[in-house]
């Protein structure tokens, strides 16, 4: 196979002669004990057409959002990404460069970062934005690391409304920081303010909430900020960037750090990644921010230009004292996010948000009317809500899948037996009605199957 190289046999001989050796083996100054004395046990290389066929076969065994009706969410959503996103991010000039260490020949990427940072500060109402981190839950953990540095405290208080995967990630990282993590439960869909006030103490570095929270409810950030700030802790909110188009900006409600998953902004579902994480904070945190940040400046002739700013925070300079270890992040995905936000524009983002609110409230009412379905809470929601029912979730989901519907994400046990249902602009009223019908059948069938089995066992 070609191996994507161009050196011919003749060239190889000539190059070896120029080096002054007779074989490539001589170039491998590797002791015998650690030299692999056999071929790798991997299949032979394939032609491009064969690779395509193999990958197409694998892809065909996935039920994707093009082949079924997708009500799945929990952090990533089946929004329509316009064709211009793919067209622009697949240009070689954006796809194939490295991190912009040579700013004179990286102005395109650097300016795109600057535009992205501006958009994210607008959405979050906070003055600082990183150029992007890996993805959602790890930004929550990164915010915790900043909070330790800012407060010199090592205790986190986390709302039960924060995505369980974000909480798990924070717990994993906290074993290293180290930090303790305490969780406050929800009450009627929202963070229990009394329990929160009790959990937050003078050792608390940060309070973590999600906005809207994991079960779809919109937290009262201002009230939570008061509790956190009274104790000298930071308030960290993991936010849905689409919802920020209509909801009060977290920075205006007292949030110190707003982070989140950027996938809803024009990025593919990609079975979970790559997407990007965003990270915005108050001015006070400027020297503690994680990740790359682009800044505006001028060149020697006075021309406007952009560079990586505040690099002394970063690992390649500050090493063990760095504000974070991140290096390669998700620049291309953040660019996709910026293109998407430009496409939606100032009015489009609001219209999209309002569309989601209307269809989501419609869906919630429609599903609540299904026999056997209850709502986990009846707080206002933007794009997602939780239902509970008294039937095995797996069985109900299987029934819906057989009707071509991915009905929702099973709720974790702490919330109840049921589903988290997400709506995007691609989910029509007809599809929502169809979901209600199929879900109702599924619950009824699962119940009767369960009842039959009980009869048999009895």
């Amino acid at each position: 196979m070609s191996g994507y190289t161009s050196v011919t046999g003749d060239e190889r001989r000539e190059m070896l002669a120029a080096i002054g050796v007779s074989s490539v083996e001589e170039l491998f100054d590797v002791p015998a004990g650690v030299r692999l004395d056999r071929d790798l046990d991997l299949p032979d290389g394939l032609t491009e057409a064969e690779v395509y066929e193999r990958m197409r076969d694998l892809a065909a065994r996935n039920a994707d959002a093009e082949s079924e009706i997708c009500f799945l969410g929990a952090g990533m959503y089946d929004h329509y990404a316009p064709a211009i996103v793919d067209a622009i991010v697949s240009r070689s000039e954006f796809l194939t460069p490295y991190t912009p260490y040579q700013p004179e020949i990286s102005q395109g990427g650097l300016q795109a970062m600057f535009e992205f940072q501006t958009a994210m500060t607008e959405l979050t109402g906070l003055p600082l934005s990183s150029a992007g981190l890996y993805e959602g839950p790890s930004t929550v953990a990164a915010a915790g690391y900043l909070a330790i540095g800012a407060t010199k405290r090592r205790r986190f208080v986390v709302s039960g409304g924060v995505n369980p995967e974000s909480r798990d990630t924070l717990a994993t990282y906290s074993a290293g920081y180290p930090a303790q993590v305490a969780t406050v439960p929800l009450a009627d869909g929202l963070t229990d303010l009394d329990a929160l006030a009790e959990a937050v103490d003078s050792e608390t570095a940060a309070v973590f909430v999600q906005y809207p929270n994991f079960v779809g409810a919109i937290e009262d950030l201002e009230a939570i900020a008061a509790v956190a700030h009274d104790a000298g802790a930071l308030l960290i909110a993991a936010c849905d960037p689409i919802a920020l188009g209509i909801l009060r900006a977290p920075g205006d409600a007292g949030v110190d750090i707003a982070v989140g998953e950027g996938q809803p902004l024009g990025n593919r579902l990609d079975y979970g990644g790559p997407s990007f994480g965003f990270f915005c904070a108050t001015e006070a945190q400027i020297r503690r921010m994680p990740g790359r940040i682009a800044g505006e400046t001028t060149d020697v002739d006075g021309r406007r230009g952009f560079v990586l700013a505040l690099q002394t925070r970063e690992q390649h300079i500050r090493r063990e004292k760095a504000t974070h270890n991140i290096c390669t992040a998700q620049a291309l995905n953040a660019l996709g996010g910026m293109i998407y936000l430009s496409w939606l524009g100032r009015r489009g983002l609001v219209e999209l948000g309002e569309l989601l609110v209307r269809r989501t409230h419609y869906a919630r009412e429609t599903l609540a009317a299904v026999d056997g379905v209850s709502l986990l809470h009846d707080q206002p929601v933007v794009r997602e809500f939780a239902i509970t029912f008294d039937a095995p979730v797996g069985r109900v989901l299987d029934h819906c899948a057989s009707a071509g519907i991915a009905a929702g994400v099973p709720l974790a046990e702490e919330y109840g037996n049921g589903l988290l249902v997400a709506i995007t602009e691609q989910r029509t009223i007809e599809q929502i009605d169809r979901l209600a019908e199929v879900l109702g059948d599924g619950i009824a069938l699962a119940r009767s199957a369960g009842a039959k089995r009980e009869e048999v066992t009895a």
Partner: protein
Amino acid sequence: MATEESYPEDLRYHPEHDWARIEGDQATFGITWYAQDSLGDVVFFDPPEVGATIAKDEPYTEVESVKAVSDVIAPLSGEILEVNDEAGTNPELINTDPYGQGWMVKVKLTDTSEVEALLDADGYRELIAE
């Protein structure tokens, strides 16, 4: 940009490229011409807190250039009486006037005999010539 290379005779020097101007049991600290030249354009200086105790040979703050961060080492032990907030706002003063407006802290010394261990200007010039 920075002034001409110089190492004033009235100052004492620490091998980590810091200077001290001794006035009785008080002293003013900063970094030498050589230090600011090695760092390049200083972009950030975070003045430490007044009242903090600092120990000889230990870092008491950091200075940053575009592509480097450097600990600033205390040439002598003492308690910080005053800090140069002006250099915090305009860190380029550390480049343009390292022995004047680019000073960093004024300190009440705890042990004036420590001064004896510092280099004089000739001794420091020899050190950096190596």
